[in-house]
């Protein structure tokens, strides 16, 4: 299973979610990225 392709650009991800009509999962974390 390939690793999740996390974005770290919130605004780009918001636009991508809207364009793909897919929900956005925003992970606020303190663990190493």
């Amino acid at each position, binding site marked *: 299973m390939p690793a999740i392709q*996390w*974005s770290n650009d*919130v605004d780009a991800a918001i636009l991508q979610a809207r364009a793909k009509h*897919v929900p956005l999962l*925003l992970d606020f*974390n303190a663990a190493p*990225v």
Partner: protein
Amino acid sequence: MYPNPDVSKFITEHFVPVKTHIKEQPAVFKRFGAQWTPTLVVFDPDGGERYRFEGYLPAGEFLAQLEFALAKDAFAREQWGDAERRFRAIAQRYPKSDAALEALYWAGVAKYKAGGDPGALKETAEQFTEQYPESAWAKKASVWAA
């Protein structure tokens, strides 16, 4: 992060995933009101916040929460049948999870919203009384039993 293959698969298949680190992007934390880590927030495609949960969860509980977020999204879009199906699936797939009882409650509400039949709420209250009488959700549903 998220080494569990089921979690990775579910996130990849159902979300645009974005991760923000408290030390690297504190402004993003402030913007969305994240006060602790980990915090996970699910937004609908138009940017409306649908669900938020805080604190670490083991894989099964975490998956249940993600599925719950999608069910709440369907509910918010007034897709009652889809929402009910999703809520019931959570209760069946993750019966020991914290999300299961809340899902059962909302499955009853979605069914009621779909048809306007108060019997859907009464059935739900009876199910709580029989199966989970000590739960907080049983107390919430108890008003429907009369």
